[in-house]
């Protein structure tokens, strides 16, 4: 040991120098690498953060707008475990924008939609959104997907005054105009969905024992909150939670069966809706299932359950929706199918496709309403004016004080493999649930807003 130690000591003198040399060269490489990737500096445009910290813009901020293009971007999972359910949304939106661009775009400008993969990882979301805002200089972020991911860029986007439109998540966080004036949600939030489903259950089956199976996060919490708006605190007969890391619901389903549940509300994503239905079928138990729109997409559920048993298990599944329904004879759906075939390589057509195209349409409508020469300010004005209608089946709620797109939902049901509205709809305003009418928007001008 001692010779080794001695050598170690004499070594250490020299090794310091070498270590520092290595460190220095490493740092040099690091800086060089970073430097290399700096874009050409011949156009020293002020970046958005310059804009944000230096001087407030007076004439209007037209970042991302040129004479013939409007550049917008989004973050969405294209890889990783979450990609399976969501990656088709941005593809559908892209297809609609291509359709729109081929037909003249909005006020003569074509829309360039930059889709960045964040793998449903908030750290990656941070990076790609900064890249969109600072490198690609987008006009707005449209339909950023996911609650944990989008939460991580909410402050950043609002500090930099970047319009943050139509967040793809049912969390209630997006509807806070005072704190986040630049953020607008799109999904009907989970509280609304929970309340509507529960009210429908109470209306149709007054004596049924209503239970809930929920994800162990804010999704489950918000659905419970919604259900309790109708049933009162502790009004649910039984509540079970699951964790996405464990794909075994046997214990939960067993407990719900034992508790004598008759109507099961589901705060589940599609995969776990399928798992819940499949597991309970194994027990030979067939209660009624009332699922949030996040986990009630018929075509997706069929692929999870398999073509053979899927349709049978899904018969009677109750869900919510606020967009044109896949199963109905809707003219919007017909148009979107056509766009999907022509501009999306005929990808599988499901609820996500309709969702993506509806979001894209709403953005086009807002952009058209923002005037010939849109700025971020005029876009905000268009959104809060209350003049937008979108293509939803319940009224669009955007206003000065409401940054949620839909404060109500319609009830859907699966019958013989067709998922369509049953006619009931509910709105939830200030914690009060009331029945309303469906109010679908008629398709005009082939879904091209600006030309009208």
């Amino acid at each position: 040991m001692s010779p080794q130690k001695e050598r170690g000591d004499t070594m250490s003198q020299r090794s310091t120098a070498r270590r520092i040399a290595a460190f220095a060269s490493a740092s040099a490489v690091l800086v060089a690498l970073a430097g290399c990737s700096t874009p050409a500096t011949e156009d020293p445009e002020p970046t958005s953060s310059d804009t944000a910290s230096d001087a407030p813009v007076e004439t209007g901020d037209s970042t991302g707008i040129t004479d013939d293009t409007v550049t917008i971007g989004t973050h969405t999972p294209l890889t990783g475990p979450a990609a399976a359910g969501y990656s088709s949304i941005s593809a559908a939106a892209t297809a609609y924008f291509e359709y729109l661009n081929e037909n003249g775009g909005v006020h003569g400008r074509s829309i360039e939609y930059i889709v960045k993969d964040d793998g449903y990882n908030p750290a990656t979301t941070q990076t790609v959104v900064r890249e969109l805002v600072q490198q690609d200089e987008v006009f707005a972020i449209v339909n950023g997907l996911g609650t944990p991911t989008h939460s991580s860029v909410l402050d950043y986007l609002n500090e930099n005054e970047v319009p943050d439109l139509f967040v793809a998540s049912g969390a209630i966080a997006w509807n806070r105009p005072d704190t986040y004036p630049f953020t607008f949600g799109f999904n009907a939030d989970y509280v609304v969905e929970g309340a509507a489903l529960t009210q429908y259950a109470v209306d149709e089956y007054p004596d049924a024992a209503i239970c809930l199976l929920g994800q162990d996060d804010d999704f489950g919490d918000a659905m419970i909150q919604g259900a309790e708006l109708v049933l009162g605190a502790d009004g649910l007969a039984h509540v079970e939670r699951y964790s996405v890391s464990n794909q075994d619901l046997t214990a939960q389903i067993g407990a719900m069966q034992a508790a004598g549940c008759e109507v099961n509300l589901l705060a589940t994503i599609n995969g776990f809706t399928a798992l819940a239905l499949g597991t309970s079928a194994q027990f030979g138990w067939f209660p009624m299932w009332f699922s949030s729109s996040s986990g009630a997409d018929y075509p997706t559920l069929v692929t999870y359950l398999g073509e053979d048993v899927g349709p049978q298990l899904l018969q009677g599944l109750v869900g919510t929706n606020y967009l044109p329904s896949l199963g109905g004879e809707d003219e919007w759906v017909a148009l979107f199918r056509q766009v999907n075939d022509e501009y999306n390589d005929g990808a599988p057509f499901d609820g996500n496709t309709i969702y993506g195209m509806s979001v894209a349409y709403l953005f086009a409508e807002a952009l058209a309403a923002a005037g010939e020469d849109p700025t971020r300010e005029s876009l905000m004005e268009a959104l809060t004016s209350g003049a937008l209608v979108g293509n939803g089946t319940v009224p669009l709620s955007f206003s000065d004080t409401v940054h949620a797109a839909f404060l109500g939902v319609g009830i859907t049901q699966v019958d013989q493999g067709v998922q369509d509205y049953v006619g009931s709809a509910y709105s939830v305003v200030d914690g009060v649930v009331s029945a309303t009418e469906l109010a679908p928007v008629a398709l005009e001008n082939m879904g091209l807003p600006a030309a009208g």
Partner: protein
Amino acid sequence: MDHLLFLLATGLARGAIFALFALSLVLIWRAARIINFAQGAMALVATYVAFAVTGLSGSYWVGLTAGILAGAVIGFGVERGLMRFTKDSHPLAGIIVAIGLVMVLQALLGIFFGQQHRPMQTPFSDSPLLWGDTPLLSPYDLFVLVVALGVMGVMALLFNRTSLGLQLRASAFAPEVSRVLGVRVSRMVTIGWMLSAAVAALAAMLLVPTELGLNPHSTDVLFIYAFTVAVVGGLDSPVGALIGGLVVGVAMTLVTGYIGATVAPIGVLVLLLLVLLVRPGGIFSMREARSA
């Protein structure tokens, strides 16, 4: 009481799969004195093979056989192509190369098959049989239990009663001495890898039909649980793997049923830490200390 009985039965079925996968870790430990962190990913590739073959042939059993064979082939390839060279490299090379392999395999599966979940069918009904009013094991669960016990039995016979088993054990414990005595040590190590990977493939193929479906991350969690099982049972002990698997399976189901699904992964971590701290050799190991 009914609820408890139900949870116990469910836990047993789940535990049998953990036990089988843990057994594969024990096999490789016995053959090569390493813990193969790529076991899950390798088994997953074999499961994709089984899935494809079942799809083409229409027979679950042909697919299952193909999957097991694919597992063995993958084990052979990984040992001869990669792991063989780690011995002479860095002391942690075995683990680090295995992790690299996990990344490569998951990336390739993602590229070739995409991220979506593909439902896999079971050969037997998965509706539980009733005992009174309480649902207990399904025919498929029984099939899993029988297969797990059968494989354990065969492996026990192989290791304890055959010359091959003796050579396998000898080359793992004392490679130099065995070589002198005429055992073809490197061949034994390869055989150990093939056996182990085939068993792991079987375990993965039994698990996936009970879950959401086949996708590139299907075995991530299985590996962690099986690792816990192997440690709890003792890495040298196939019997330990069996009992450990059933214990962990039942414990997880009880925790999920009585406390909550969220607590289960934390429970596994706590169990792992407790066993390693209190009885590092595993509950069923005779050894006092153990070194890697």
